[in-house]
């Protein structure tokens, strides 16, 4: 009883103890905040990586792909059994995207992915993958003001059709080009009246400046499949190309800082409705192939690696261009089959089963985590190191407690002597200081948890306030792509942090408590 009473009294009358409570509190709060934000980023990143990749990916080892997709899918379904949710076939190939920017050709290496948006959405772990990442589904805001409403309604499934806006932009662009060409023609006619008629291939429309070079290289390149069945006369010059693309935002935009306002702005070079040129290689004997494609939409997953690399193309067109369609059976080859599982926990088992069931050498089967192993491992290691460092903060707080407690024990030496003279046991005296430490730890980590959780909850408001205070953006959305700071509070993490803080407080009080317990009563009573 006296233990509790004295413990409470000492806590209430020693303001120095407040210092150790505060240090424990701060340590706990920072650990919670940092851990939550770190794992928020991690989870966000994982979900973005995972968003593009499906749970399990079966890839062919050659770029030629395999024919008879249905047969392979059937095998996969049989092997996977009930665990398979849905499947989607894709063609993945490296390529190059070319477009003009202010008269200069811009070239980007890209990863070209032929998909059917609907089946791709089916295997994606994110509900409505394209609906959340395509530009035309988003509302655009600038400084809190809506500057553009979504162009497609949320319920509309992603497809390869142009939006009215994009079609309008395309028509407008073509008119401009047309006028430009007419003018050039007129000029040429004036200087060279007997020149041959300029061919009206609409594909040349968008390269007015280097149209000539494009035409020249066209001759050297192998047959351009995109124009195979094209009618000789273009019906509507504004009709989009047959190849349609979703282009990663990083490929067609750049971020710059407005000189006047100092605000970061996004400049888009290619808008939906405009055309770009894609080069890649054909299947079979690798030969370069080139084709024009219309950008239908701009894609923004939030993973810069994807957004500056990926170009989604309509599957049939890519198969056709690459010569992957069997002339007899009209069956297109694919290079990968994406699998969505009903329960991701069983992924490694499914991978095992598929690896043995599918012909070796032809396919490789991996989970998305295996595909992105090094990146995920890096995030984990980063988090672990940060945790160790932060834990050191709490340890420092622990040493603070040790020093302060030692002081209090010295200060209370006579009281300890009195208690022992009245019959208190060494253990009893020790308990006073241990429970003192326990109380400090509990109060400190309790308040720390509360502060940490509050901080995490209001992190965006805090960020705004701090940005205003320092006049500098702390969390720049344009860098991270996140509209908000992602946080992920895990109960186990909070409990672990709180418990280890309490543990450290108790451990730190062991030494002073033992000293108190070992005091000789008479010596202690004589202590001045």
């Amino acid at each position: 009883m006296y233990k509790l009473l004295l413990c409470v009294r000492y806590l209430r009358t020693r303001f120095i103890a407040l210092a150790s409570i505060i240090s424990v509190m701060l340590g706990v709060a920072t650990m919670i905040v940092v851990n939550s934000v770190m794992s928020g980023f991690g989870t966000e990143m994982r979900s973005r990586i995972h968003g593009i990749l499906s749970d399990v990916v079966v890839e062919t080892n050659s770029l030629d792909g395999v024919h008879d997709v249905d047969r392979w899918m059937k095998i996969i379904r049989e092997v996977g059994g009930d665990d398979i949710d849905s499947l989607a076939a894709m063609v993945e190939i490296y390529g190059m995207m070319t477009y003009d920017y202010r008269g200069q050709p811009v070239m980007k290496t890209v990863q070209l992915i032929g998909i059917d948006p609907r089946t791709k959405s089916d295997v994606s772990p994110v509900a409505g993958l394209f609906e959340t990442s395509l530009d035309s589904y988003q509302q655009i805001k600038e400084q809190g003001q809506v500057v553009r409403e979504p162009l497609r309604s949320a319920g509309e499934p992603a497809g390869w059709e142009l939006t009215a806006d994009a079609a309008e932009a395309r028509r407008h662009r073509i008119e401009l080009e047309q006028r430009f060409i007419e003018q050039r023609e007129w000029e040429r006619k004036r200087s060279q009246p007997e020149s041959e008629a300029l061919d009206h291939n609409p594909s040349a429309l968008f390269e007015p400046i280097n149209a000539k070079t494009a035409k020249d290289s066209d001759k050297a390149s192998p047959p351009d499949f995109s124009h195979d069945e094209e009618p000789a006369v273009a019906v509507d010059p504004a009709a989009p190309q047959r190849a349609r693309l979703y282009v990663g935002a990083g490929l067609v935009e750049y971020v710059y800082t407005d000189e006047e306002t100092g605000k970061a702005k996004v400049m888009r070079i290619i808008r939906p409705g405009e055309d770009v040129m894609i080069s890649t290689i054909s299947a079979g004997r690798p030969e370069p192939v080139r084709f024009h494609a219309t950008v239908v939409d701009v894609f923004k997953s939030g993973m810069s690696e994807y957004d500056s690399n990926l170009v989604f193309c309509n599957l049939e067109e890519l198969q056709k261009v690459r010569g992957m369609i069997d002339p007899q059976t009209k069956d297109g080859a694919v290079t990968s089959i994406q699998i969505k599982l009903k329960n991701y926990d069983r992924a490694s088992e499914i991978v095992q089963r598929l690896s043995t069931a599918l012909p070796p050498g032809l396919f490789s089967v991996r989970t998305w985590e295996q595909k992105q192993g090094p990146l995920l491992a890096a995030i984990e290691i980063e988090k672990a190191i940060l945790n160790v460092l932060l834990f050191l903060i709490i340890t420092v707080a622990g040493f603070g407690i040790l020093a302060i407690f030692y002081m209090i024990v010295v200060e209370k030496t006579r009281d300890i002597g009195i208690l022992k003279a009245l019959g208190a046991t060494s253990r009893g005296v020790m308990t006073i200081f241990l429970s003192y430490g326990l109380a400090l730890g509990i109060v400190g980590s309790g308040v720390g948890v509360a502060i940490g959780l509050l901080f995490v909850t209001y992190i965006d408001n805090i960020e705004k306030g701090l940005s205003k205070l320092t006049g500098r953006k702390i969390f720049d959305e344009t860098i991270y792509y996140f509209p908000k700071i992602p946080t992920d509070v895990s109960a186990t993490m909070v409990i672990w942090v709180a418990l280890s803080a309490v543990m450290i407080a108790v451990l730190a009080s062991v030494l002073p408590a033992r000293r108190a317990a070992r005091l000789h009563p008479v010596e202690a009573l004589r202590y001045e």
Partner: protein
Amino acid sequence: MPDLLILEPTRRLMQTTPIAPVHLASIALEKSYRKGNHQIPVLRGVEINIRRGEFLSIVGQSGSGKSTLLHVMGLLDSPSVGEVLLDGDRIDDLPQKTRDELRNRVFGFVFQFYHLLPELTVLENVLAPLMIRHSMLSYWKRRREFRLAAEEILEKVGLTHRLKHKPNELSGGEMQRAAIARALVAKPEILLADEPTGNLDAGTGQEIMGLLRNLNEQDGLTIVMVTHDESLARSSHRLVRLTEGRLELLSDAA
């Protein structure tokens, strides 16, 4: 006049307990302190038998070792040589835990410098021995009873109006009385009082003495009291002097 004062209680004691048994005793008690390489002897063979219900006074020069003797007899310190006996059984070599318990149950200490706990109120200070004796649960169950006992004792020493005061808000005499109340609340068998009247004026000193005598007569409490005031000491049963580490009998009223 003082003689009458002592004779009265003594006679009564003699009538009730013709030959009271030895309560607390010491055999060839020696205590020395080490100072560097030197051993400084303080007690050099103290032999004393204190009978049950006896009121013993010890006088002696300052630094003669009176406090040391009380500490050793009360198990606060262990003797260098010799034995301490309680009811004929040796107690100074008992395990630490048992000695802690004996200190709590058998002995009541009044220290020369009061030694109250500064963070606790007078009432809480008085309750401290009971808090130490009982577990938290049993204390909680009997807290009313204990509180009443403490208030009763505090009333006896005349501190009813200071229950909620902290020691630093009390005068020396009040602290002394609080210390006595604390020593008595746990109903000890033996009271070891180190100059309980040392800081009091003559009147208050007499009051305290009266209180101690009352306890001794009515409750049969064995009292060992260290004092400088020989006139007060004379009102006890037996008076001894500590000189050169040994006890010499000055007067024995029995």
